[in-house]
């Protein structure tokens, strides 16, 4: 079962990256998130 879940995780990450999710994370993470620090 663990092998299947790891395969699913790898496919999920690959699909997420292919639709631009890593770029969204990068855009969010390189700026100060005003809401996250209680100033938004």
């Amino acid at each position, binding site marked *: *079962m*663990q092998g299947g*879940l*790891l395969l*699913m*995780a*790898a*496919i*999920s*990450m*690959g*699909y*997420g*990256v292919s*639709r631009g*999710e*890593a*770029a*969204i*994370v*990068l855009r*969010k*993470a*390189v*700026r*100060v*998130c*005003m*809401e*996250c*620090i*209680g*100033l*938004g």
Partner: protein
Amino acid sequence: MRQSIRRKLIQTLAFFITNPRLGNFLSGRLYKGEWKSLCVPGLNCYSCPAATFACPIGALQAVISSAGLWFSYYVAGFLLAVGVVWGRLVCGFLCPFGLFQELLHKVPLPKRKLWAPLLYVKYVILIVFVLLLPLLWTDFSGAGGPAFCEYICPAGTLEAGLPLLAARPEFRQALGGLFAWKLLVLVLVIIGCMMSYRFFCKLLCPLGAIYGLLNRISLYRLQLSREACVACGKCQSACPMGVNPVGNPGAAECIRCGECVAACPRQALSLRFSADDICK
């Protein structure tokens, strides 16, 4: 070397690997390189000036709250992979906020056990604040906000809010009710951690909830030999998370700290990589 000392060294090392850019605390600037698209396994605010990587809970909300996307396959896949391999070992060894909580618990205040039903609050927070509100509570453009980070996460206030307010005076103009609320949450969590071991992990952490759900099937696991166990109860007494390792070696609250393994006089418990049944 004693297990507890070895674990503290690994936790300290993990803290500095997660937050290597300590000089940024003085300037209040953030690291803006490509590494920030990768998540760390533990809870660590990406607005912390010292952070090199992204917080998985913040990243999950960032994608979910983007207009047109309702789920993050990238972050969910990452959390599933980490959880299936390590389970809540991440909490016990790699999470910077976990280390902070353990240090707070050394403050000599009366110690209390949490009421057991409160352990389920973190699952509600995961579903409501991390998964649903960023998706459903949107503005006119369809974009939501990071509800957990905004209203609950004390790590963001501690690692990013307070250092940035200290280093960059322009942020002080934005101080208001929200920051007062976040500061109150941080103070309550700090007091809670002084009185109850890893108060935030047990009660509020959505990352602990995710890894806890995967604890029973994780490849790195606590294994019990029923033949060797004499049911002396020393493992349960030694567990700082209030788990009974004999009754439930795959308990969602077990952070794989190894205190029970060290306390067992018959070597009936072990921590290892295995796909076998957790009780033999």
